[in-house]
């Protein structure tokens, strides 16, 4: 459902990241199908999946995955530029302002703290107004306080944009803030709530 938040929890190696990779069409399943916004992901070729990602998906990674050669603003501009959309710089700057980094536009990732880097990653994920946001342990590399702040920001942005959120975490407190929760054990759904 649109705007809904789903938490995927489970121990290390239970298959959380694999599931996320399949949802995004980054990995290919040995059997079965994934339907995204009505389209059969694996009925498409790799470029078809990429275009679908560009249209529908936003990503937040545990290790941020900012491009080291680009500054904060350029990192956020990148998805817009790849889609060839106009006004990339303005939209990216506004987005960075919303995540509280208006003063940090020209900073390179290596000069930003972990929390700041993840906020740039959030800005990059939301700047294209995706229908679905996939987040892979977004606080995994952050200390508790910073992590909480990033999560607050993510839910706030999510609520404003009415984005559907799939959040992989092993933090039950964070999972508890999602509308639904599924638990993976050895690659199978052990319980849902």
């Amino acid at each position: 459902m649109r705007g809904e938040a789903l938490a995927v929890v489970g121990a290390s190696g239970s298959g959380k990241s694999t599931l996320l990779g399949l949802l995004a069409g980054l990995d290919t399943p040995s059997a079965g199908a994934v339907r995204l916004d009505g389209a059969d992901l694996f009925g498409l070729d790799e470029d078809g999946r990429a275009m679908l990602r560009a249209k529908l998906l936003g990503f937040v990674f545990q290790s941020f995955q900012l491009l080291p050669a680009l500054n904060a603003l350029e990192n956020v501009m990148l998805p817009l530029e790849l889609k060839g959309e106009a006004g990339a710089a303005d939209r990216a700057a506004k987005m960075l302002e919303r995540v509280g980094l208006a003063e940090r536009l020209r900073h390179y990732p290596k000069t930003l703290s972990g929390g700041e880097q993840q906020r740039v990653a959030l800005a990059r994920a939301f700047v294209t107004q995706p229908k679905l946001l996939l987040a892979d342990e977004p606080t995994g590399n952050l200390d508790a306080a910073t992590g909480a702040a990033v999560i607050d920001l993510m839910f706030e942005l999510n609520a404003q944009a009415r984005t559907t959120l799939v959040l992989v975490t092993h933090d039950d407190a964070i999972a508890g803030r999602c509308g639904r929760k599924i638990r993976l054990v050895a690659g199978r759904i052990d319980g849902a709530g």
Partner: protein
Amino acid sequence: MRRLALRMLLRDWRAGELRVLALALVLAVGSVASVAFFGDRVRQALTREAHQVLGADVLMSADHAWAAEFRDEIARRGLAHAESMTFVSMVRAGNEAQLAAVKAVTPGYPLRGKLRIASGLNIPDAETGAIPERGVLWLDERMMAALKVRPGDTVELGSTHFRVGAVLTLEPDRGVSFMNFAPRLMMRLEDLPATGLVQPGSRIGYQLFAAGGREAVQGFEQWAKSRLGRGERIDSLENARPEVRAGLDRAQNFLGLTAMLAVVLSAVAIALGTRRYTERHLDGYAVMRCLGATQSQLFALFAWEFLLLALAASVAGCVLGFLVQALVAWWLAALIPGTLPPPGPMPVLQGAATGLVLLLGFALPPLLQLKDVPALRVIRRDVGPPRQGALAVYIVGLAAVFGLLFWQAGELRLAGYVFGGFAAAFGIFAAIAYGALRLIGRFGRAGNVSWRYGLANLLRRPRANAVQIVAIAVGLTAILILTLIRVDLLDSWRGRLPPDAPDRFLVNIQPEQRQPLDEFLERAGVKRPQTFPMVRARLTAINGKQVSAEDFSEERAKRQIEREFNLTYLSSLPVDNKIAEGAWFGPDDLARGAISVEYWIAERFGIRRGDTLEFVSDGRSFSAPITSVRKLEWDSMRPNFFFITTPSMLEGFPASYVASFHAPAGDALLTSRLSQAFPNLTVIDVSVVLRQLQFVMDQLIGAVQLVFLFALAAGVLVLYAALLATQDERTHEAAVMRALGASRAQILAAQRAEFAVLGAIAGLLGSFGATAIGWTLATRVFQLDFIWNGWIWLAGPALGLACVVLNAWVGARAALSRPPMAALREAQ
């Protein structure tokens, strides 16, 4: 996409991601362009210089007066024009008389090069743009000495009296033909008719000189060639001055090979730079895939970025190349007389094409490989690009290099040799490096923690480290070739014409004159004259079959078979002769009799080893089998013989002797004294020719050395790129080690151990490579003696150790000066 690519290029540049690659490219293009610029200009200058030995761009000779149509055509094509007539005549002064080689010239002669004259004997000479005034003669110093005259005196030529105007010290177009060995005299052509020397039936040579723009000259040459009649010919550099041509060819080979070396080295630097770039951008690529970029979009993005980079670097490189060569040309102005002709547009094209082809050749394969980077890499770090064989990836790059070599060399065989040589060297280097690392892994496990860790580090990535060793070894090979081997090669080249090379030849020495002549020369301070016996004989039969001029189609063969050859007999092989086939006379040959034949004469007469030759001399015939074929150095200025027999065969025949020696400096009258003491001897003075040849060779060597500098820069760049290739990884490892509690000293010691092994292996390989390439170049390409250099085996490893240790020191400081966390975070 192009605009985004441009933005990405600028962003990468600003972030410092492209500096290594861009530097490699700019230097590569710069060195190729400057070699091309400079080579092009030097080549033009050298060709012009070489044309001085003809006195023109085109020299036409005939045994009768030239028809007016040739003069008209020269004028019609806007070429400069001059003429001369040459003949031999007696000159008188008082009671003295001397046979002189007379040259009567028109104003403007020579069109290329300058005459040099002096106002008296033993007075420094100077260039002149003039020719003798009317009623004036210029005599060379031997002529002055023979006639006992000085400038201002009067001499008689034919039926006219002339004033002696100056001492003629140099005629640039003086070749080595027989008439040129008589003392010389120059006059104005307008004065000739009055002497009455030109009569029907006089033996006179008529020369026509033309010079001008390259195209006009070539056009005229084409035009004239088809209209040459009997007794008329066009002299080119090839047939007029083979010894100058040989030097020029050698210099062009040196220059061309240097440029090729620069291409190969640049290719290695660019390959390393591209690898570093793509490795650093793997993650970015995966992220962009997650952000929804299609593969074709990303390929286009990177391809455009690289294309733009190649263009920018090519422009910068060409500008750099032009500036550098201009600087060098300015600095060289003293060495190369006259102004260098302006460079043509070709070098720019060559530089730009080199940059483009090299970058795309080496960047495209990794880019294509990037397409296979799974986007999943953003979630799982262990998923990398699928590993293909390094060779498969670089096939495009290798093809590009081969194409450039082919372009540079202009012929498939030489390009093939160079490419094959480097490919073989890479393969051998890689195998040895890999094997050595394995060996160290098995036996080198002793020592303290740092040493063990350092070695373990080497062995953890044997393939990557082998690649690095190969790259460093290639850089070192280039540097060693360009320093040590180069000096040896040039010495060997220069050694062909040492300052004490023989410059006088004595012909027709009678057996009873040998002793007094030796004593005369010793008193005159001549060191080590070389003497050969000479027996004149006609070749009458090959393998028992009588031969005559009709048996041969080639004009020169016909002429030679009708004349007598000069044979010599020797028991040991003369210096400068090399056996191309068979073996030099052994004890059996010396007992039975055998003949050794010169290579080209054997080709001309279609004879080979095993054939039996019969000669007739003094009414007696003798025959023997050919046991060897020799190659001679025609530019060595020593007496050379087509046929050499064993002593027993010819000792009974009447012989005269020929001697060569180097005249002591400052003895201008030695030749005259010799002629007076031994009136029957013919004294041939080649000192002027020799001086000219040595001057040309010095210039060539100077030019070649400068072009070497650029290739040297490329070699250093390869080293830099090779060392940089693993720096990221090392920085990260140092951070991890420090996080684990290692002290700075421990990390430095570990890196030193690792680099010491790396540097020593690479250095040894470099010494090996440089020696092998030097040997091949010397013996196969330049036909020079290879001088073994023991220092190279010390210099290679020392250089290898020095540069990796320096790098370790700089790299380690960078790694250690930052908090480990920063390095760790960056490496994630």
